[in-house]
């Protein structure tokens, strides 16, 4: 391609008119911005998310109850009072595991 054609090509391209923005263009832009601002605000947490957030606390509470029970059982056995383990064995022997079933 010679220099004349090269220049002609670019001059013609320069003269090509750009499309005019549609009349509602600024409204569309504002809508897109509002949509974006809405998605930026935090959404309501679902029940599963809330449980997920609570899980560490629930796990610690469960561990504390188990530890308390073990300590109480050990303490009661030490002072001669039937402990929780004895109580459970007694109930099993007397009621649940009787020879005639229930």
């Amino acid at each position, binding site marked *: *391609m010679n220099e*004349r054609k*090269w220049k*002609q*090509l*670019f001059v*013609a*391209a*320069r*003269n*090509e*008119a*750009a*499309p*005019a*923005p*549609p009349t509602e*263009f*600024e*409204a*569309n*832009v*504002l809508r*897109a*911005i509002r949509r*974006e*601002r809405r998605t930026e605000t935090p959404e309501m947490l679902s029940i599963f998310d809330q449980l997920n957030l609570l899980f560490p606390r629930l796990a610690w509470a469960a561990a504390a109850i188990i530890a308390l029970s073990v300590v109480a059982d050990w303490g009661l056995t030490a002072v001669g009072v039937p402990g929780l383990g004895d109580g459970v064995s007694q109930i099993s022997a007397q009621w649940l595991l009787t020879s005639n079933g229930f």
Partner: protein
Amino acid sequence: MNDDAELLERIRNGAPDDFAEVVRRHQSRVFAILHRYEHDAHKVEDLAQETFVKAWRALEQFDGRAPFEHWLSRIAVRVALDHLRREKKRRNEIGLLELGEEALEWLRSDDEKSELDGRAAAEILDLALRELSPADRVVITMQEIEGRSVKEICAATGASGVAVRVRALRARAKLKRALEKLVKL
């Protein structure tokens, strides 16, 4: 409201709907920039919207040292560059079928008086420019079609003067080869 600075200050101080006025003032310029890189009017509109949304997001970063329209043009050029990178993966092949009758005739003609209108020129350039990398395409478009100086291209692309000059030379040579290829097809 007479100038951009005052308008932008109002938006920053809690009048987001005034951004519509910013869009009204600058939309023609943004459409003109994006039209150089994409000829589908719907896509140009989408890209223009992307440009203004990005400008909105980055509004706090605009320090007012340069005119707002320069800052916005820079965002538009980057949006165009990203678009070209996405499109490059999709359509890389050259096909004469995409050219109209007038463009084909002009390409094949040796007549010095042969005319070429803007539409046909854009078709030819669009096809030939696909041979270039998106960054080369931006530089050659800004330099040859928009008639921008190296300094202006540096400001819009964030590249150094040397990088722009080297890229422009390389892009020009590549574009010439691509056009030769089109003439021979």
